[in-house]
């Protein structure tokens, strides 16, 4: 697909539309399970956007990890937690107007910034998984290893919190 071509533009708007509509659904659906599945659609939409940016590896990771694993985990988490009735598990709150105003003003600021800034758009090059891996283990080795520690901390944390919950009941 050529950058800036008709198909490219069309794909961008289509995928953005799907992503945004699904994201709205995540917030507004009353049933938490519906929200969780729509979250998966949002992730897939983002994966599609990565494809249009020629970031195939990112798109694959997005689809596998987020849409595949994270969304499923959210659904399982919802199913395992205690609740009365699923159809009212994601209730709206009374801050709708204030929230909408705040969100709109933030969106306004960002849109203004993006439209008014002259971006330097390059040709771009295809980044392969190999390139990413090489940079992980050279330039970006410290943050890469730090992320490994972060995952270990999260794992330990999950066990700690689980034990705490068990001691409580």
């Amino acid at each position, binding site marked *: 697909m050529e950058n800036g071509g008709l198909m490219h533009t069309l794909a961008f708007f289509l995928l953005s539309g799907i992503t945004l509509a699904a994201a709205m659904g995540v917030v507004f659906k009353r049933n938490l399970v519906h929200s969780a599945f729509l979250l998966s659609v949002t992730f897939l939409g983002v994966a599609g956007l990565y494809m249009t940016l020629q970031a195939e590896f990112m798109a694959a990771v997005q689809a596998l990890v987020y849409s595949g694993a994270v969304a499923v985990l959210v659904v399982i988490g919802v199913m395992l937690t205690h609740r009365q009735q699923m159809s009212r598990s994601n209730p709206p709150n009374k801050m709708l107007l204030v929230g909408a105003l705040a969100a709109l003003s933030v969106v306004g*600021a*960002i849109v*203004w*910034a*993006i439209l*008014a*800034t*002259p*971006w*330097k758009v*390059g040709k771009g090059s295809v980044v392969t998984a190999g390139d990413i891996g090489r940079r992980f283990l*050279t*330039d*970006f*080795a*410290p*943050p890469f290893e*730090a*992320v490994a*520690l*972060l995952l*270990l*901390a*999260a794992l*330990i*944390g999950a*066990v*700690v*919190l689980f*034990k*705490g*919950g068990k*001691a*409580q009941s």
Partner: protein
Amino acid sequence: MNFDALMLEMAVALLALLILVADLLMEPGQSRRKLGYLAIAGLTGLLLVSLGRYGMQGAFFNGLFLQDDYALFFKQTFLIGAILVCLFSLDTVDNLPHSRAEFYVLLLFAVVGMMILASANDLITLYVGIELMTFSFFILVGYVLCETKSTEAAIKYLVLASAASAVMLYGMSLLFGIAGQLSYNALAKGLTASPALIVGGVMVLSGFAFKIAAPPFHMWAPDVYEGAPIPVTALLAMGSKAAGFAAMVRIFAEVFPGTGYPWPLLLLLLSGAAMLVGNLAAIPQTNLKRMLAYSSVAQAGYLLTGMLSGGFAGVKGVLFYLMIYVFANVGAFAVLTAVSRHRNGETIGDIAGLSRKAPVLAVVMTVSLLSMAGIPPLAGFVGKFFLFSSAIDAGYLWIAVLGFVLSMVSVYYYLNVVKSMYLGAPADDRPFEIAMPVRVTAVFAMAATLAMGVYPGPLSQLAETAAKTVFK
């Protein structure tokens, strides 16, 4: 590949893993106090090793991770803070219902995150450092799951910190979009004046303001400080704040000055708001942890005045003040640990009459609080002197005047606690037991606060050397 630049981080991470493995080899019911001593011994050893590392300049690959005196000074601040927190948390950890060894492990992981923040010289390393520190804190804050307050604090911290991270990450993506590069050196050259730079810069600044608890991003602090176990609150107050400043000062010194926007104006607003909100909201607090939370908001305001000048004199003040804030903080929270142990509460009524039951602790608390207020001859006075004089030299007279007036206001609520300790009647007649490590920590913190107030020369020299590596 220069592994020497990463030496301290790797050593702390290895120490954490060692404790994790040693815990598995111990009997399930056995006390984990030995592991606490192991953590303290390991960190102390590293602190001694790090003393000999001044003047070493280095970078791990293409300058994305720096080793310099500035980062080293911050790493020593974190190490000292972590050693003292481990020391006075030994008994708190012994009384935890479960997962005692993991407490030290997560604490060390948080320290690794802070150290990475001090050395980070590109946006990715910066973000990962922040997340490593914050993730460890999520769990530490909610460690005592059977206490509703602790759980509530953890959830609040999780949701708000995630939102702050998201905002900061979006800001970074805008900066990256303008410059097309991630390292600070390249950003400094590549960032051109544009609306996206304003929005991106403000978003990154908001993320930092959340970490250092400056208004309007301070709302999490009182609730989280109140709910978290006391040692965690202490580390959150000094470590998280110091790490936030470490990264913020570097990015504001290296990236933003050349972009042509008046960033000091934003810092000025943040600083004024922090001093006003922190000091005024602290007055009506009766829970001491909440009071110290608002007081730490005010401290962030004082520290921000040091960044206004954009020169090394102010940064020297920031470094000096953060180091002495560690000691004042540890003193206050160590005493609070003992009081909370005895009374099972942390209100101003619980501390009443402390001077009769534990005169040493009452003195430590008094010294720590007065140092935070900036009363001479304590260390806090010298720190505030450096900060405010750098702001005045840079032409920001009014913020220094505001800081001075509000410091006087802060004396009121600090002295309120002192009054309760010395004049109030004790709430019970039970004998007051102080664990040895808590006593040692408290007295050490007080001695350091006094010593650095009377003889600030060596530390201020060290801070000056460190500040000069950022402002060449």
